[in-house]
């Protein structure tokens, strides 16, 4: 096949483009650690999820073990129902406590799983019974002020 003088330059151009796409995928983006939708799903209900978002991390002992897949409000109990998709490598006992924590002072919110001592494990579709809602700063401050006021009136 006859080669034109443009072939080499265009080949280089396309190769550079592909290299930078790989750079974007692996170094900038998170394709390397990308989950393909596998895993088992568990359900957790919270009184208040605060600023938790879909695709937020699910961590146990600080290690990411899954993602929040869906958040809906239960129309009967008015609780927030979250579906957590967990890595099949990890199993959690039935009495696991799910709580919503914040990474750092201004960081993102995530679901923390604290493993209990039960020998029965959570399976696909199971529900985490023990949950702890997100901390709401305004409520905390309100509670703090209320306690302070109560203390003051009690000491007088």
């Amino acid at each position, binding site marked *: 096949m006859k080669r034109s003088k*443009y072939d080499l330059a*265009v080949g280089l*151009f*396309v190769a550079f483009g592909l290299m*930078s796409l790989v750079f*974007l995928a692996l170094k*900038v*983006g998170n394709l390397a650690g990308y989950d393909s939708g596998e895993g088992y799903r568990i359900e957790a209900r919270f009184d208040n999820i605060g600023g938790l*978002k879909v695709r937020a991390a699910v961590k146990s002992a600080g290690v990411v073990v899954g993602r929040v897949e869906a958040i809906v409000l239960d129309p009967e109990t008015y609780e927030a129902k979250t579906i957590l998709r967990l890595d099949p490598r990890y199993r959690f006992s039935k009495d696991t406590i799910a709580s919503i924590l914040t990474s750092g002072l201004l960081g993102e919110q995530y679901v923390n799983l604290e493993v209990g001592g039960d020998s029965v494990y959570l399976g696909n579709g199971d529900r985490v019974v023990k949950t702890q809602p997100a901390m709401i700063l305004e409520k905390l401050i309100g509670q703090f002020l209320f306690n302070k006021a109560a203390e003051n009136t009690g000491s007088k």
Partner: protein
Amino acid sequence: MNRLLEPLADLGHVVLSALARLGLVGRFFIGILTVLWFPVRRFSLLVREVYFSGFRSLLIVTVSGLFVGMVLAVQGYEVLQRFGSAESLGVLVALSLVRELGPVVTALLFAGRAGSATTAEIGLMQATDQIAAMDMMAINPMARIIAPRFLAAVISVPILACLFISAGIFGSYLVGVQLIGIDEGAFWSQMQASVDFRLDVINGLIKAVVFGVAIGLISVFEGYYAPPTAEGVSSATTRTVVVSSLTVLMLDFGLTVWMFRGLS
């Protein structure tokens, strides 16, 4: 005609001629699409156009990307360090480059660098009757001249956008990590945690492809229908840059609203 109705008739004329031109663009676009297989089969034609519009834009795009990234790092750091979160600089730079600046600035540069050249080339071909001559020899100018240039723009813009984004992130790395001294690990890991490949990178590339289609179509259209005079070609070239830039910015708004509607 009644003097009072004159402005109304002017308005009507403006709207009607704008609509007619839009229809012409639409027919032209369909005309290109029907002969799009030709440059794929005659691959050397396409390679030549990718060389002229894509490869020759490499320098301007990567250097611009580098400097945009460096400026973003300096400005972003200035604001972020007030809140004590200078480590989030990588996230700020990467997301703004991948989602918006990369595709948009690349498209604007491409319209100025390559779109204008395409219009001038085709306009001059038209003015010197080269296209009519081709038609006489039973060579379809749409397939031989227009389609390769259009396809080259569609191919080049996403590749250039990738390079722009990579150069920008590298520039912000140089300034943020090497010069200012942000922790390198935090810079990359926070970036990786926040930039989603499908949501951010792929959407940015979709934008770039759409902008490539828009610029390619506008530049070949303006050239093809340029009045065959020196003045006509020059005003067609100007119009390519102006119309492409405005179209890119408007399309960007529409695409952004559509792509990120489900977020937050």
